[in-house]
């Protein structure tokens, strides 16, 4: 056990730290604790820069543009990104979900076509899993694809799709055998979002801003070579995606929580709430929780490095993060007292926390509701009987 950097980790860290200092967009730090959040152009440019410097896809195989570095470098990378409060790569879905699934299940052609583009940010991806009628019960999906020679023709509707409005590609689950059992008639497609018949409509979230989208598919033709895995065997492929969504992504989310935690400390100082013993106790509680979560991720990572399989503790990350983030953003509002209602320009930090707090309510719904994640831990990690 050693929490210090090994020599090659230390040199990677120092190289990255200098790089970030030199390359962060001008005025980024000053900008960051404001409501100004996500700008696709800035983000694309930054993603490219990160990629060109070799910081994207650290653990991916070299032949697809990665660096084949050990997983611990990814942890160092996230820590330094937090320290610098650097913006994230635009390709959250591509890097965290589509990419790893293509690495696991893709043909050489699919890998060559997509993986490097995902890393560079040239291909932005979105996810087409959920439907209005199938939320937690994903396998009840009804978007259908019918074979027409060397194409599938897709019709249906997907929902809660982040980035779909700027996405080039979509990982899409469709029903290809309506007569098969629920889990056995599903196929996993890679769909060009610029195809005819794809219609993206933004869905505004509670805060009023769009982030999610609905995607409507009307006779969209998808070439047969864009099937990922086998026809009608898409459920297993989707499980790979979800594993990454809840595992690897949970890891990155913990870094975001650390950024938010630091901002709460700053807020408490700025408002004088740091002198309130109730606030102090809650800040300390959050800090302790955050260390617990972070080091739990590291334990799972060590197991992954040593055995090739992540430790079962990894299943905790997304679940605990989401509930912790909800408590933390609410604490931020409480620190503001009666000013908590002031949003936008007149609010503290341009309404940064007002947005974050409302946004956080989605955390326990998206990417597996907390109810479903507890079922999964109960059944798959603890071996308890099924509850459905």
């Amino acid at each position, binding site marked *: 056990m050693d929490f210090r950097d090994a020599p090659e980790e230390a040199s990677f860290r120092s190289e990255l730290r200098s790089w970030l200092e030199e390359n962060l967009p001008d005025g980024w730090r000053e900008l960051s604790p404001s409501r100004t959040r996500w700008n696709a152009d800035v983000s694309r440019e930054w993603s490219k820069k990160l990629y060109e410097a070799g910081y994207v896809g650290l653990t991916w195989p070299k032949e697809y543009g990665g660096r084949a570095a050990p997983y611990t470098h990814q942890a160092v990378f996230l820590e330094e990104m937090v320290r610098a409060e650097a913006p994230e790569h635009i390709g959250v879905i591509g890097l965290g979900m589509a990419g790893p699934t293509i690495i696991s299940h893709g043909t050489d052609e699919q890998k060559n076509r997509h993986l490097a583009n995902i890393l560079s940010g040239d291909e932005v991806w979105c996810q087409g899993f*959920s439907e*209005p009628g*199938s*939320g*937690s*019960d994903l396998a*009840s999906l009804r978007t259908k694809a019918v074979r027409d020679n060397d194409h599938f023709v897709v019709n249906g509707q997907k*929902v*809660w799709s982040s980035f779909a409005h700027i996405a080039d590609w979509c990982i899409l689950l469709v029903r290809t055998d309506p007569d098969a059992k629920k889990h056995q008639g599903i196929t996993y497609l890679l769909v060009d979002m610029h195809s005819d018949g794809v219609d993206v409509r933004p*869905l*505004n*979230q*509670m*805060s*009023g801003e769009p982030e*999610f989208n609905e995607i409507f598919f009307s006779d969209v033709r998808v070439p047969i070579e864009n099937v990922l895995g086998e026809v009608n065997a898409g459920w297993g492929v989707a499980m790979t995606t979800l594993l990454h969504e809840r595992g690897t992504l949970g890891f990155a989310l913990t870094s975001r929580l650390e950024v938010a935690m630091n901002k709460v400390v700053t807020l408490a100082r700025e408002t004088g709430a740091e002198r309130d013993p*109730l606030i102090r106790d809650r800040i300390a509680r959050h800090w302790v929780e955050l260390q617990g979560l972070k080091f739990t991720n590291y334990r799972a990572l060590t197991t992954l490095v040593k055995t090739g399989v992540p430790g079962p503790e990894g299943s905790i990350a997304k679940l605990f993060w989401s509930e912790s983030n909800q408590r933390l953003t609410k604490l931020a*509002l*409480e620190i*503001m*007292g*009666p*000013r*908590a*209602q*002031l*949003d*936008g*320009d*007149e*609010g503290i930090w341009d*309404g940064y926390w*007002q947005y974050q707090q*409302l946004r956080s*309510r*989605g955390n*326990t*719904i*998206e990417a597996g*509701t*907390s*109810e479903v994640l*507890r*079922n999964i831990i109960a059944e798959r990690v603890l071996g308890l009987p099924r*509850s*459905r």
Partner: protein
Amino acid sequence: MDFAFSEEQEMLRSQARSFVTDRFGAERVAQLAETEAGWDESSWDAMTELGWMGLSIPEEQGGAGFGFLEEAVLFEELGYGLYPGPYFSTVALARRALDGAPEQLKRLASGGSRLTLAWIEGGRAKLLPETGMSTQAQESGDGWTLTGEKHLVPDASAATDVVVVAAGPEGLGLWVARCEDAKIEMDPTMDRTRRLGRIIFDGTPAEQVAGAGDVRSTLERVQMTAYAALALEAVGAGQAAFELAADHVKTREQFGKPIGAYQAVSHQVVDSYIGIELARSLAYWAAWCVAEGDERAPMAAAAAKSFAGEAAVASCERAIQVHGGIGFTYEHPLHRYYKRAQWIDSFDGFGSVQRASVATALLGS
């Protein structure tokens, strides 16, 4: 010992329920929230005609001569319907400072004014100011003028008149001014159905309604009435969110069953039910104490506001959770109840501020 509203009060409740559901269904409230005014001014006339403005105003000033218990029924129902308009700022805040100003009460009862209260300045946010105020009242001829800037004034743009806490030559006091004589700038507020704004006074003419001798007791009355009113509104809003949740989980199916058949879902709805019922009991108790001038009124009102504010927020959060993605969208009404509940929760400080008063009453300071 009787813990029920009278038949007359229950009739008033039905009237109010019809009023909000007929005129202010979820869709209508959503529309109004997106307008610049943020409310439907014609509703004020309708409510005046129903006699609601003068409910607790003595008959000699054109009111109905009832008390806060009748108004309590309205607060709960207007909270349930998320009524957008300055009823809270008028009746729970400003009206409580006007008992010594019969002409103002007459105007209010007749529908001639809509009011709010301005107490917050930059850096000081408590309803009961400890000392000083930078907003100044000066004698000018046979009247007064006000100069200064007030923040976080509820429904500032919907009001015609504003009661202002200011520093006069003899110390703190309360004055009423016309909003049209001041400059009003509305701020972006999370709850678009109850907005906050700034009012800037610059030699604005005003009439004094409370002097240094009774400003503290007047503001204490304002505070406890506001707490009780907000607790009742919170019960209404929290109840509405709870009902949406209970209805949704009965019908939404996943894995071949209504999701209300899963304990992880149904027990959340039960916890909302419990929270709102306890909040209701506290809010009714507080309302009665305020109406009767019971000595426990300040403690009861603080207790009710802290608990009901948090219970309503929790009820909305659970409702959003059991709705899944749809409950998280702007188009669904849930976020409007949630933002109102948060507005209430943050008023004059979140729950721990009111619990600190309760602790002082129990344990000394």
